[in-house]
């Protein structure tokens, strides 16, 4: 503090310092909220990694292929889609399985556009952020009120889900290897239920509901006709047509491409 400044400036500076201190306390409180939310979402998601691991080995993948998916692909919807198509069509359905997983993965790219300004600087940090940009990390980040707590929420959620998902899918794959006939444990129905859980939070708008019903009908009708995997891709065309023309859509409303929270990925 320069000595020539009048005393009243001192008082003002004290006030500013107090403001800064109370702002820091408030920011830390928001950080704690973001951390708590991240932990809750992370633990819930990791828990169902066990079911993915078991289903993955049941569909014909090895333990290490399952682990590779969780480490590198790291996107529950895409992972379930890949093993679902492979379970039905085997290696011959490989191209459809890859296309299905990639199409489901496009939404992570859209999330990245929103989270890119939040995650911090440096190419290594941004590379890591992209790797863990999924439904959960994006949803928790965007739900926080300040940029600082958004950044905290993104990293806490993403890192906990990454660690937990990899750990629990590995355990699930080990369990799956010892199960034998997975149908008698109802694991095929569990996979279908998992897809319902992923879809459910996305059905809030009428247009989404219309597309979901149409896609369900198209996929069912084409299953006896087309090779495994192709009915799923054909159903995606329904979405492109409806989305392009905005048929059955509202003029305004909540923006699309917003991640859903809660019931997993």
């Amino acid at each position: 503090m320069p000595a020539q400044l009048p005393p009243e400036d001192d008082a003002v500076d004290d006030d500013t310092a107090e403001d800064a201190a109370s702002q820091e306390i408030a920011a830390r409180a928001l950080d704690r909220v973001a951390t708590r939310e991240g932990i809750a979402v992370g633990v819930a998601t990791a828990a169902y990694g066990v079911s993915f691991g078991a289903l993955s080995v049941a569909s014909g993948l090895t333990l290490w292929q399952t682990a590779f998916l969780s480490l590198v692909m790291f996107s529950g919807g895409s992972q379930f889609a890949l093993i679902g198509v492979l379970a039905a069509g085997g290696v011959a359905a490989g191209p459809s399985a890859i296309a299905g997983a990639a199409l489901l993965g496009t939404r992570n790219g859209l999330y990245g556009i929103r989270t890119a300004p939040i995650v911090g600087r440096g190419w290594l940090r941004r590379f890591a952020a992209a790797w863990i940009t999924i439904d959960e990390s994006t949803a928790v980040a965007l739900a926080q009120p300040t940029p600082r707590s958004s950044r905290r929420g993104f990293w806490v959620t993403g890192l906990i889900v990454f660690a937990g998902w990899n750990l629990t899918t590995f355990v699930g794959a080990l369990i799956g290897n010892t199960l034998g006939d997975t149908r008698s444990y109802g694991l095929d129905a569990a996979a279908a239920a998992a897809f319902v859980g992923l879809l459910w939070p996305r059905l809030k708008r009428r247009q989404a509901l219309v597309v979901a019903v149409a896609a369900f009908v198209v996929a069912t009708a084409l299953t006896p006709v087309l090779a495994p995997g192709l009915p799923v891709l054909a159903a995606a065309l329904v979405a492109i047509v409806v989305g392009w023309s905005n048929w059955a859509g509202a003029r305004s409303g909540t923006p699309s491409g917003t991640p859903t929270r809660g019931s997993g990925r």
Partner: protein
Amino acid sequence: MTLWQIVIAASIACVVLKLAGYLVPASVLKKPTLARISELVTVALLAALIAVQTLGAGTGVALDARVPAVLVAVVLFALRVPFIVVVIVAALVAAGLRALF
């Protein structure tokens, strides 16, 4: 294609898509058609996967224990039951029906 090639190719595709989000300008999101199509494609793929996973049997369609299991799952999700609980209950319903009949 081998299983490993499929696993690696699909994984790389998903990582590249994530990285792309950090490279494109934010103005891309201002095009509502693109964002809408992306969200609806996700919805359509998940609905189609439910259909195939619930009704598909090899190269045909079959009604079996999976159908009541998935219906139970739909009801439980509507009641806001946690994800992992619903998945386990669905497995138990299908396993129970198969053990009984």
